């Protein structure tokens, strides 16, 4: 079973890297960009074929390590 975990900064948390990327896009002449927030994507292989078990395992992975829930949100998608 494959899954994708996306970790993003919570609203209101300052993202200097996103701001720098936003500035770089502007200086490259890419128009129409109102804001950029940088996040992380993890593609994960799971041994189980049980969806509920996979969800529980991925939740544990996110809470214990992949996201710092002080500043980040996470989203889990199971293929």
């Amino acid at each position, binding site marked *: 079973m494959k899954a994708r975990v996306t970790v993003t900064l919570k609203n209101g948390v300052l993202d*200097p890297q996103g701001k720098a990327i936003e500035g770089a896009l502007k200086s490259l002449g890419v128009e129409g960009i109102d804001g950029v927030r940088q996040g992380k994507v993890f593609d994960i292989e799971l041994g189980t074929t049980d969806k509920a078990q996979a969800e529980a395992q991925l939740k544990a992975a996110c809470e214990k*390590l*992949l996201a710092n829930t*002080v500043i980040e949100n996470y989203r889990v998608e199971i293929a």
Partner: protein
Amino acid sequence: MKSAVIVFPGSNREGDMVRALTLAGSDAQKVWHAETELPKGTDLVVLPGGFSYGDYLRCGAIAGRATVMDAVRAHAACGGLVLGVCNGFQILCEAGLLPGILMRNANLKFICHRQYLRVERTDTAFTRNYTKGQAIDVCVAHGEGNYTADEETLKRLEGEGLVAFRYADAQGHITQDANRNGSMNSIAGIYSDKLNVLGMMPHPENLIEDLVGGTDGRGLFESLVSSFPKAA
């Protein structure tokens, strides 16, 4: 006073830390991160600076969950002293021993320079040899030192006097220019609720000898050593 300096893959300031502790009179030894226990009789645990696990995922995230950290958590829970410097501060935040997080510096640059800090209180084991409001001359070297916490946490830190050091000018004034990484409220270091855990971004261990340009960092190590009665 017995201190244990924890070494993670990618730590690089453990040598200076052991030297600073030893010069102050501590019996300091290095402890590998895979250990499950601290050496018997450890009074102080130190998490030194560096780039543990290459700063992969988030600074300090993987080290914060290393095997030895359970022992460090237990040591702190019993009131034992813990000091985290630079990457060590990031590890303490990731391990849940201190609130908040160190984000990328606001100007996105790695900063490396001499830096004055204002000592906010001197009634702790870490700062008793300084004077309140003293501006100490140490240095900083980090890319992720921008202290960030939610409003409630910040209010609690300020309300309970848990801010240990702030970025200041040579006179001890808190100015925007002195706060080069963009930290909230110019925070350079914080204590845990019980004042037994200190995390700070600047490096006191770098400024302990005239040979390298200053000795203001000594006070912290001497404070720690003088907090313990001498072994017979």
